[in-house]
């Protein structure tokens, strides 16, 4: 399998060139962008793309872009604006410090020795999950849970997922840890080549397990796996955690939460891949669902990446989200993606509104009496 970063770069250049020539200036992209706090319009981006002459405004915007893809969905001229901003990320004059911190360890093959040191402590501190952290070699199993670096997620989604699998009586293997990062952080920072390399490494790990099904609770990991599958014509299927759990819903006894719960759509799963229904179907088993928007495409992005870059920007987004939830009559909000959960966590905690990661909620909703 050949994934030269040059090929990706050329593909990106082609998409960008095409976009520059096709843009008709409708500015819908920038109107729908959830992180466009500076009021950038697309000509500012195009002017930098062509001239290479950066402005502070454009540089800030490019750093804060979370690649949600709403811009491309909104464009009447079929311009892939998210890819064009990705091209700008590659062109940034310097790598911002928060990115360097964020990417310090995840998937860094040149720092595996440091990850090994980190893992010594992690395996002790993460209880039952510890045995899976960068486990090698993986054992063959038809069912592979892919947690990647979200094995460390404060959402407790990985633990809940495994509890559910045990409750159903399934046999599985787990691929987790910093070494198995999907490459998304590198994509987001414009380091496409390295991101590609990480995905290749991940492919090698997956091949050890020879799974038929891979399940993940992170939307970015899900999209990365879909990409990997396409690139390699892999025989396995990839599911989000709600998709997976729905296959086994009849093996569990469901109880409903007392209050109505609003649903937040992940940009990648609902909008880009176009699968908003599984999370809804799962939530319907355990709660009265309320919709916050007219369609899933209208859902306001969580702004995830900006918990590292511009927390204030995210806070503003989250306040809007809380208002939308209240207006819809939801008393709590469910998310199917752990990164969405991590983005919203602090804001919802401060507002005293429950934020439920879908697997955590499902685990609670299917506990038998007396089970903790």
């Amino acid at each position, binding site marked *: 399998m050949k994934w030269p970063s040059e090929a*990706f770069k050329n*593909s990106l250049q*082609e*998409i960008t060139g*095409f976009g*520059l*020539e*096709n*843009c*008709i*200036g*409708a*500015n819908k992209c920038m109107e729908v962008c959830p992180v466009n706090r500076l009021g950038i*319009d697309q*000509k*500012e981006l*195009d*002017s930098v793309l*062509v*001239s*290479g*002459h950066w*402005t502070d405004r454009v540089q800030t915007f490019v750093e804060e872009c979370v690649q949600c*893809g709403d811009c*491309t*969905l909104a464009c*009447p*001229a*079929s311009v*892939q604006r*998210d*890819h064009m901003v*990705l091209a700008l990320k590659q062109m940034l004059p310097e790598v911002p410090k928060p990115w360097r911190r964020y990417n310090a360890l995840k998937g860094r093959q040149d720092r595996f020795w440091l990850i090994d040191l980190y893992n010594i402590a992690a395996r002790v501190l993460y209880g039952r999950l510890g045995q899976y952290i960068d486990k090698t070699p993986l054992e063959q199993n038809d069912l592979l849970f892919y947690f990647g670096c979200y094995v460390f997620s404060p959402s407790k989604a990985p633990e809940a997922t495994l509890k559910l699998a045990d409750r159903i009586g399934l046999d599985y293997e787990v691929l987790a840890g910093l070494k198995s990062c999907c490459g998304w952080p590198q*994509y987001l920072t414009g380091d496409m080549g390295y991101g590609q390399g990480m995905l290749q490494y991940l492919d090698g790990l997956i091949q050890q397990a020879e799974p038929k099904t891979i399940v993940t609770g992170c939307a970015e990991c899900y*999209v990365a796996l*879909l*990409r990997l599958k*396409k690139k390699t014509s892999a025989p396995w299927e990839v599911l989000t955690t709600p998709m997976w759990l729905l296959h086994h819903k009849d093996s569990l006894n469901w109880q409903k939460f007392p209050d109505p719960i609003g649903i937040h759509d992940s940009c990648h799963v609902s909008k*880009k*891949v*176009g699968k908003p229904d599984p999370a809804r179907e799962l939530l319907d088993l355990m709660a009265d669902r309320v919709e916050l928007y007219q369609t899933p495409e209208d859902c306001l992005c969580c702004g995830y990446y900006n918990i590292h870059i511009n927390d204030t920007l995210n806070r503003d987004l989250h306040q809007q989200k809380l208002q939308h939830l209240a207006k819809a009559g939801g008393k709590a909000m469910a998310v199917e993606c752990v990164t969405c959960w991590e983005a919203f966590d602090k804001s919802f905690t401060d507002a005293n509104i429950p934020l439920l990661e879908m697997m955590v909620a499902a685990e609670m909703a299917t506990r038998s009496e007396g089970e903790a």
Partner: protein
Amino acid sequence: MPPRNLLIIGNGVAGVSAAQQARQTDPDCRITLLHKENYPFYYRSSLTEWITGELTSENITARTDSFYHAMQIQNISGTVTGVLPQEKIVQLQNGRELNYDALCIATGAKANKILYDGIDENSILTYRTKDDAERIKLEFLNEPRVLIVGGGVLGLELAGGLQRLGIEDVAITEYMGHIARPILDEGLARWLEAKIRKEGYKIYLDETIDHIEQDEAIFKSGKTHHFDLLIESVGITPTYPNIPGLETRKGIRIDPHGRTNLENIYACGDCTEMFNETTGEWQTTRIWYDCARQGRAAGTAMAGGAKPIKKQAVFNCSYIYNEKYSYIGEPHGEGDIYRYQHNDAHRKIHLVNGRLVGALLINDRHGTTPIYACVGKNLEEFGEDLAHPDFDWNAISGQDWDYRFF
């Protein structure tokens, strides 16, 4: 050796694309962009949104001031009165003369105007430039009864804008049997006509205005329609300076490099025509994307490089009325046609002898870019699956075009 002196007449998408590409080809050359309009390069395609107030003047300006400075493109305003190819001089109305080593003509086109008995020529508005849009915008303050002549893309785009603006009394008259040619085939045109009528607008088909009596248009059929504002969208005609020896017919004739028959004189955009090998005819350029491509080719050539336009399928994505569309290649005609429809989403794929020749996607436009990349490929084996939104065009195109899976 002194830097080459490049002069481009016209600051539309073709002229600015030429300037951009000339700079990227020759970092040292001098580039002057001469323009007649009082506005910097703007998105003509977004004038409707400017009229409705959805976009500001700032929004529709297509490049920042710092862009021209960074690219070292000098913008000057002026009207060309003459070009002397032997002396390599362009003469301006204010008496100034500009020398050049290479000249690119990107003077665009003007809106056609049909005149009628009973109405002053100046009372008929056209819709092409920002000046036109300014006039129209002012008139809309009075909430007029609007009659749009021309049911093509631009006329319908304006009608869509009026609908969003809440102007209630709007009629469209089209001399052919259905609206939206050449974008929509008859079946899809009927769908759109029904939609527009349902929203309260009138459409007159197979109709032309015979004459005007005060505020009433009298059609050749005898039907009549009252209006306050008559706006015509009836096509454009290339415009260019009169240059001795320059080969022209409808437009300035160019080759894929943007070269004219005169040495050191190039042209691009709506003022040109290019030979179409497939049809064996010379064709004018009417599409924004093609104008940009021509500009790129001409800018490269005039700066000493070579990046000719390759033969490529038509590509146009925008709004028709208020519906998004992607028009690729030749979606209509003989051959195998596969359709998909769900609510207001329509997808049409056209194969000839098994090869993809075109597609038309309305509202559901998934796969636009990879479909474009697949024109010419033999896709016979896939049959009607081709029209479905979930069809994997990326896999066929061999590239990661789809925004869903970067």
